[in-house]
C-alpha cells in the first residue's frame, strides 16, 4: 500500500476539512486513483446528519501516486482536528483569517508532500513541508497524523444514503444570514420546516403551540440538475422524465429537520461560496456546498439531513 501526493491547493483542502471538523471529531477519508472522499456518517450525529464530500484529485494534488490491493483505493479514519492542524501549518494562506496568520509560522512552504507512512509501528498520514524562513534558512516541518486503515470489506460497505430524486433544487441565500435567523429559532422549537418550490421561493418555518413563524425568500435561483456534475449517479435518465412531466412550478415541497442538525450544516458557512438545497419531499434534505466557484469544480460537500417525524405538521 503506497500513497504519495503533493498538495497544490492547500486552502481548498483546509476549508474542506474546516467545515467537516465542526461536525465530527473523526472522519473517513477515501483516496482512489481519481478522487478524494471525505465522509462523516456517524450515527451519533445530531439529527442523523451526514456529510459526503468528493474532490477530483487533479484539483488539489500533483504527483499523485496511489497503489493498493483494493483497486488502488485506500480508506482510512483520522481525527479531523489533527488533520486541520497539519493543514494549517502547511501554508500561511491556508487559513484566511488574520488571527490565524499571526500564529502561523512565517515561512512559505514551497512544497507540501502528503504520504502514507509507518512511524513507530503506527500508520500515519505524514505531511512534510519545506520552506524558507525569513532569515533565509531552509526549514522542514513534518506533521504526522495518526490513522486507522479501513479494511476493503468495510470500505465497500460505505455508501451514500439512498434518496429518491429531489423534487426541487434551490440556490440558497448567504448562509451567514440564514444562520442568524435559525439561531433565533433554536430556543423556540426543535423542528424546522424547509420548504421550497420551483418558482424561486424558499421558506424556513417553525410551528409550535406558542408561536408560528415563517421566513420567506423570493427570487432564489432554481438551478437545473445538470449544473452539479458531482451528484448522485443514475439520475440522468430520470431527469429527462421529470422535464417532460413538468410539475407545477408553484407547488411547495417540504422536509422537516432537526433544528440542531440544520445549524450544524450552517456552520459550514465558512467554506461555502454557493450552496444548493435539494428537497426530497418528506424524506430528506440534500445540500450541496461548493467550495470555491462551481465552475472551478474545486470540491463539493454533500450534506444529507433526514426528515424528523413531528406530530404538529
Amino acid at each position, binding site marked *: 500500500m503506497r500513497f504519495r501526493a503533493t498538495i497544490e491547493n492547500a486552502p481548498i483542502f483546509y476549508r474542506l476539512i474546516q467545515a467537516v471538523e465542526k461536525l465530527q471529531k473523526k472522519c473517513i477519508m477515501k483516496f482512489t486513483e481519481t478522487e478524494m472522499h471525505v465522509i462523516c456518517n456517524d450515527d451519533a450525529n445530531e439529527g442523523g446528519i451526514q456529510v459526503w464530500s468528493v474532490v477530483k484529485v487533479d484539483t488539489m494534488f500533483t504527483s499523485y501516486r496511489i497503489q493498493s490491493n483494493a483497486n488502488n483505493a485506500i480508506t482510512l479514519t483520522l481525527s479531523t482536528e489533527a488533520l486541520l492542524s497539519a493543514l494549517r501549518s502547511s501554508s500561511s494562506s491556508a487559513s484566511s483569517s488574520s488571527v490565524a496568520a499571526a500564529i502561523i509560522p512565517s515561512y512559505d512552504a514551497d512544497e507540501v508532500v502528503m504520504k502514507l507512512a509507518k512511524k513507530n509501528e503506527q500508520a500515519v498520514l505524514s505531511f512534510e513541508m519545506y520552506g524558507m524562513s525569513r532569515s533565509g534558512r531552509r526549514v522542514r516541518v513534518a506533521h504526522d497524523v495518526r490513522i486507522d486503515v479501513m479494511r476493503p470489506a468495510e470500505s465497500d460497505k460505505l455508501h451514500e444514503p439512498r434518496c429518491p430524486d429531489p423534487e426541487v433544487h434551490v440556490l440558497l*441565500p448567504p448562509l451567514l*444570514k440564514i444562520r*442568524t*435567523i435559525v439561531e*433565533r*429559532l433554536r*430556543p*423556540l422549537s426543535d423542528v424546522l420546516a424547509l420548504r421550497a418550490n420551483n418558482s424561486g421561493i424558499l421558506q424556513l418555518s417553525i410551528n409550535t*403551540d*406558542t*408561536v*408560528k*413563524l*415563517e*421566513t*420567506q*425568500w423570493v427570487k432564489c435561483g432554481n438551478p437545473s440538475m445538470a449544473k452539479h456534475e458531482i451528484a448522485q449517479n443514475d439520475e440522468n435518465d430520470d431527469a429527462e422524465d421529470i422535464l417532460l412531466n413538468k410539475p407545477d412550478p408553484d407547488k411547495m415541497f417540504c422536509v422537516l429537520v432537526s433544528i440542531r442538525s440544520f445549524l450544524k450544516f450552517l456552520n459550514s458557512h465558512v467554506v461555502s461560496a454557493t450552496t444548493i438545497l435539494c428537497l426530497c419531499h418528506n424524506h430528506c434534505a440534500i445540500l450541496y456546498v461548493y467550495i470555491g466557484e462551481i465552475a472551478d469544480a474545486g470540491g463539493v460537500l454533500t450534506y444529507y439531513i433526514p426528515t424528523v417525524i413531528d406530530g404538529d405538521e
Partner: protein
Amino acid sequence: MSQLMSQPSQSDKAKPLLTASVHDVRYFASLLRGIGFSNRASMRFTAGSGITVTVEEARTLLATSYVYADHFDEWAFDVDNLQAAPSQLSAPDFDRHATSFEIPLNTLLECLNIFGTANMSSSSSTGSKHKQWRRADDASDDERGDDARRPNANRIDQHFGGNEKRTSMRLTYAGPGYPLTLVLAEDSSGPTTTCEISTFDSEPNLELPFDAEQTALKIIFKSSFWLRDALSELDPSCEKITLIANPVADVQSAHRGIPAKPLFRIQGTGAFGSTEMDYPNDREVLETFECSRSVSFSYRFAHISRTLRALQNSTKTSLRLEQEGLLSLQFLVPVPRPRGGMSDSFIEFRCLALDDDVAQ
C-alpha cells in the same frame, strides 16, 4: 395559567383590530427588553394612546413599558372591528377602545430580533467608569455630557446609520382569541418573516397605585447614568438595598457619635458586607430633589437590579417614594417620531418596600 384561546390562522380572514407599523423595530424591542425579566407579559392596546406592556414579579415588583402611538409610522385601531365573545361584550368593564391579553415576552423578543438587527448598541456599564464628578467651574454643556455617557448609542448610529440594516415591523391583532401577528423585513431584497404568537386571556394585573399626595421623596436624576453607575457598583452578592433621604435642612455629616443624615444615600447590604453611596446636593446630578421628611426603606436587591436594562437605555430617571415605602422609578426613553424628531417613551418600575421589622 389561563386557557389558550388562539385560533390557528383565522386572523388572515378577520379584519384586524389594530395595525401598527414601524420602520425600525429597535426602539420598540428595547422598550420591551427593559422589562423582559419574565416570559409572561400583559399587553394592552389602547385606541388613542398606544401600547402598554406589563410584567410583574412576586406580587412585589411591577414593570410597565409605555410605547405611545406617535412612535409608530402607522397606527390604526379600528374600534368597530373589536371581535370579542358575547360574554365579554356584555361585561360591565368592557372597553371598546382597549384590548388586552397575555403573551410570551421572550418569544416576542426573539421574533423581533429574527434578523439580528433589532438591538440598540447601548453602552455597557463599564463605559460609565470614565465619568468624572463635574466641578462647579466646569463649563461643559449637557448635550455633550449625555452623549459621552452613551458613546456607543449615539455616535455609532450616526456613523454607521447608513450601513446597518434595520428591521421593520408590521403588527396586527384581530382581537381576543387571535394571535399577535408580526411581519418583519430588513429590506425589499431580503427575506420576510411572518410570525403568529399565541395570546392568552389576561389575568388581573397586580396593581400598585402610587398616591402622588403621599410622596415623601422625589428625585430626578439629570442623567440615568448616576443611578445606573451606583447600582452597577453594588456587588451581586448584595441582598438588600436601602434608600435613605433627609430634607435639605436636616442634612448633616456624622459628628460626636451622632450618625450622619445624608441627603440621599443608597446602601447595599449582603452577606459579604455593605456599601454606601451618598449623593451630593448638586444640580448636575440631582436635577430635582424634594424631600418632605426623613425616609428609609429597603427593597430586595434582586428586584431593584431588574431595572438595570431599562436604566441603560434611558436618558433621565425619576425616583419617587411614597410615605409607606412604595418606590416608583420612571425611566425616560427617547424614541424617534416617524416624521423626524424625538418623543418620549417611559418604562416604569414600582416596588413594594420590605417590611420594616424584617428589614432592620
